[in-house]
């Protein structure tokens, strides 16, 4: 069977890795928020779409290439996320989880409808890159390659920040034990603001990258947030690195299922993968059991 030829398998693998890198960037932010404040941000994919529509506007009004838009959009969404935490999330962070779920769900509905008012329900796209990179017998779509690689670089950047820097370690400390972090002199409220800002910026960057590979409309967030939920459970709730693994795993498996069976099945893959991982490792790939 032709599908089993090594070139085709490799092609599927590369496509899957590139798509997975985008998932990883998006889900990484969601998991960071969950890790630090035990809040599931339902509006996370809408922050992604702010990035996507931002790239769309900057491209159509100023002719700006999305790779440049990234430099404008990411800092803006960081600031938006930072104050969003202060104004809204900080008020619900120590409440029962239902409160924050409802609050962020409300934000998601508001953002979707504002998006519909401004941009209508037509699909938009930012067609800046066309064609493919040819590497031997392999053809990798240029927009996918760029989006995947940029996402990967950003995720690794965030990982290094969390792993190496004083503030990044403080984020991890708060996520492990907020009270003990506090008595170390860490201002937990400030860390939460930083975390939400970073997570929103990651989602926004994922949105800019999304804009060059997919068409999108204000309601596109739903598909992505559902995949993100699956990814963070697969990777381990609250574990940033787990979300990166989970995102890449989902991208690769979707790609193979799309190639061997049908792209329609690829939609169901996230949940099949979820169930499989939970059967083998109930805490997720990188998860730690919590009391």
């Amino acid at each position, binding site marked *: 069977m032709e599908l089993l030829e090594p070139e085709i398998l490799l092609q599927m693998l590369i496509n899957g890795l590139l798509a997975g890198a985008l998932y990883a960037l998006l889900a990484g932010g969601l998991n960071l928020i969950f890790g630090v404040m035990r809040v599931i941000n339902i509006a996370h994919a809408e922050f992604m779409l702010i990035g996507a529509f931002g790239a769309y506007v900057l491209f159509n009004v100023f002719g700006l290439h999305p790779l440049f838009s990234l430099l404008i959009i990411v800092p803006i969404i960081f600031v938006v996320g930072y104050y969003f935490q202060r104004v809204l999330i900080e008020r619900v962070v120590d409440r029962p989880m239902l409160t924050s779920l409802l609050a962020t769900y409300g934000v998601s509905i508001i953002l979707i409808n504002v998006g519909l008012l401004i941009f209508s329900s037509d699909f938009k796209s930012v067609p800046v890159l066309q064609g493919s990179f040819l590497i031997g017998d392999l053809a990798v779509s240029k927009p996918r390659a760029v989006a995947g690689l940029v996402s990967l670089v950003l995720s690794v950047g965030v990982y290094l920040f969390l792993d190496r820097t*004083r503030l990044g*370690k*403080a984020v*991890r*400390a708060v996520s*492990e*034990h907020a*009270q*003990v*972090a*506090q*008595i*170390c*002199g*860490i*201002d*937990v409220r400030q860390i939460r603001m930083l975390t939400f800002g970073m997570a929103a910026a990651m989602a926004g960057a994922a949105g800019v990258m999304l804009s060059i590979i997919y068409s999108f409309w204000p309601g596109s967030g739903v598909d992505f947030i559902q995949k993100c939920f699956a990814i963070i459970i697969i990777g381990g709730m609250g574990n940033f690195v787990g979300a990166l693994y989970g995102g890449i795993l989902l991208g690769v498996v979707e790609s193979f299922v799309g190639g061997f069976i049908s792209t329609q099945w690829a939609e169901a893959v996230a949940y099949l993968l979820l169930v499989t991982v939970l059967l083998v490792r109930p805490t997720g790939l990188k998860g*730690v059991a919590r009391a």
Partner: protein
Amino acid sequence: MKEPLLTVHDMEVSYGAVQVLFGVSLEVRAGEIVCIIGPNGAGKSTVIKAVIGLVPAQKGQVEFDGQPITNSPAHEIPALGITYVPQGRIVFAQMTVADNLEMGAFLKRDSHKRREAVQAVFDQFPRLYERRNQPAGKLSGGEQQMLAIGRALMMNPRLVILDEPSLGLSPKYVDLIYEKLLDLKRQGRTLLMVEQNAARALELSDRGYALELGHNRFADTGAKLLANEDVRRMYLGGA
């Protein structure tokens, strides 16, 4: 007599509708080891949590080095020179030993100063140095307690507050921890601790306070409390 380093005056604390402290007072002078003993529910841990800002005091004053610090936010306390070793030797389990220590000096912005402080703790606790790159969750209970104490030394504090430092440790590590506490005293630090293991704590302490249901009950030198018949009956299991 020296001015007290820490004074707690007439402190009242409630958790919701339940009042736990009904006007507790105590003082700690520079260079002393002071322990608070009492049965479960006496409010021992609550006193120190209120001192370091982890629970709000409804009434009463806390003074450190002559300055009022009542209800200061917990993250501002280490900068004053007070650090805390939490009950249950809580470390950041997924972070390395070295990173755990570094977090103890979070307030030092200069990375060289943080590294120097980490090195100073490694000098005192060679075992932690051996395991510096391992996740703290992989350490034994005693090693985790060493790490929690080491973390509390990173800011070079004048007062170290310990909540049940020997709880759940093997006898070997209890000895080791108590030895370390004496070392800290010899270095000129002041210690305030809460202990379930009252006899052991009083032997080590200059002075002790015995609490009962959120009230001061006895206050004296460690030795006198140990010799007191009532204290022995009520707090030391009648031994």
